[in-house]
């Protein structure tokens, strides 16, 4: 099964057993990966990120696949492959 690295930051990092995990999963899209994480680790992770009304990522939450914001790829349908690095961020700002 393909292996993915999952990194979750700030408040999201506190919802998973580790902020930096390697998982084997059959998920081939970001949406499937989020469903997988919700089922295997913590359903709250998905509730935080996905707006149940729209099924889209909540405003200002961000998901990067290999450093690229999925909003500029194929959003939740962005494809995943073996070795990909997926990063999840709650709203963050500074300067």
């Amino acid at each position, binding site marked *: 099964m393909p292996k993915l690295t999952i990194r979750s930051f700030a408040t999201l990092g506190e919802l998973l057993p580790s902020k930096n995990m390697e998982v084997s999963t059959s998920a081939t899209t970001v949406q499937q990966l989020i469903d997988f994480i919700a089922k295997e680790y913590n359903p709250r992770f998905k509730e935080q990120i996905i707006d149940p009304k729209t099924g889209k990522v909540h405003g200002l939450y961000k998901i990067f696949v290999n450093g690229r914001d999925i909003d500029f790829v194929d959003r939740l349908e962005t494809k995943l492959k073996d070795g990909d690095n997926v*990063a999840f961020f709650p709203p963050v700002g500074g300067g």
Partner: protein
Amino acid sequence: MELKLLRVNLSKETIKEEKVDAATTKKFVGGRGIGVKILFDELKPGIDPLSPENKLIFMTGPATGTAFPACGRFHVITKSPLTGGIGDSNCGGDWGPELRFAGFDGIIFEGKAESPVYLWIHDGEAELRCAEKYWGKGIWDTEDGIREELSNPKVKFAGIGPAGENLVLNAAIINDKHRAAGRTGVGAVMGSKNLKTVAVYGTGKPQVADPEELQAAVKKAQEKLEKSAITNESLPTYGTAVLVNIINESGIYPTRNFQTGVFPTASKTSGEVIKETVLVRKKACWGCPIACGRVSRVKNPPYQTDGEGPEYETTWSLGAMCGIDNLEAITKAHNICDELGIDPISFGSTVACAMELYEKGLIPKEKLGGLEPKFGNPQAIVELAWRTAYRAGFGDEIALGAKRLAEKYGAPELAMHVKGLELPAYDPRGVKGHGLGYATSNRGGCHLRAYMIAPEIVGVPEKLDPLKTEGKAQWVKTFQDIFSICDSLVVCKFLTFALSADDLKDLTNPITGWNWTTDDLLKTGDRIYTLERMFINREDFDRKDDTLPPRLLKEPMPEGPVKGHVADLEKMLDEYYKVRGWKDGKPTKEKLKELGLA
């Protein structure tokens, strides 16, 4: 609304009160706007910034010390000794509001005192006092000493440490012990005037035109600030260094003097780790509901320290920029900068430049007094902070800033600066609009004239693709104009994570009684930005200076998510001049007429 200023001639030891009339105040607001107006009108082009001919202006604005959220700020404006152009820096803490409570909106210093002095302002009175016994002392001892001398524990200070006294070109003015008006070498100008500090205490209250309407606007603004997960959650919980991870994951975290945008151990210095390790508690500037400040402590040697920070920028400049991931050393170096009065961004960047020069064999070992300035050496950054403030040994060369240092050793391309000011913590090869912001910033390499990271990474007020250039010029201009207003009111730019230009206008009108539309607000910002440009045009800055270091324009990012990208500037620059009404970096006559500047 008029403004009341003090004009202090240090050579003649005279102090006079004067007014900024209502029409000029409406045109330039306060803070940065009024500061650049005074500088433009009163300074002869070409003067030496460290001569008595330069002026050093401390300004608050109409919002400072009122109910406007996050208004505990002030602005310092002068001609920069680091860049030769406009020098200015904005700062939080308590000092700005205190100046207004004492009855003044700003102070213009001119000339040079014969021997060290400080200015003591208290409830409408001002006097120059001898500061000889504090000269040579750090910021913290000076504040404590003068508080005792004045027998008033509530006095607030904005002053210099040894770095400013020794005319270190990246010297800061520090207020309230830990807040830095850091950029462009304003501390060196203060040192050149033999002015140690400005002590203020007041019991008054700034007047506002319509207190009830202001309360209503504040309530609305507060609701928005509470609803924003950035201003209500991430900034107070993790501080500004919450950005470390997302910027590093985006591949734009400048590492080892911008040689790459990926620092593999960046997370060891992130806001999350700061929270778990050195953080004692969060802290707010006066009147700020956000509280992004950090009070911190390192308990054990060798980097034991009590103080504040680090912030996102210092975590980077004293960290990844120098290849360092030791949070305790970074916190220690940050505190040395606060205590001795150094701008940590310019200082860290200059050390990084020295590290690259050294690793390339361009700085001979005997110059270094036993130091080993290699990337990743935490001891070097701590040691060099001391040496720079006192201009001891190789610190004397770090005191020059990156541009002069790299030129001295025959490799000017290794200084990561724009117009002589060292760049901050985002690599523009992967955030194209932000690069245009750096290039066109009037004060030089700076992220606070146009913070394109907000739309290009954070997604506020809307998300823009960081790798595209289309339409970015207009965005940069709008940001520059809004931030000119923030710096002139004077309020914190972090408000704009939750509040729009409309909201800023709704908060300003009840204070000033101006009846601004949002267009009026933007046009006023445009006027201030353009006047600054006129100031630097007079000092020979134009299109040739609206650029980026050659590394960022020519060397593709070597790795990470933005591998292969360079900063695309020229096309955006043409578009930018068009939307600004400028030609080759200079405002056109028509534009000046339109803005009432001709």
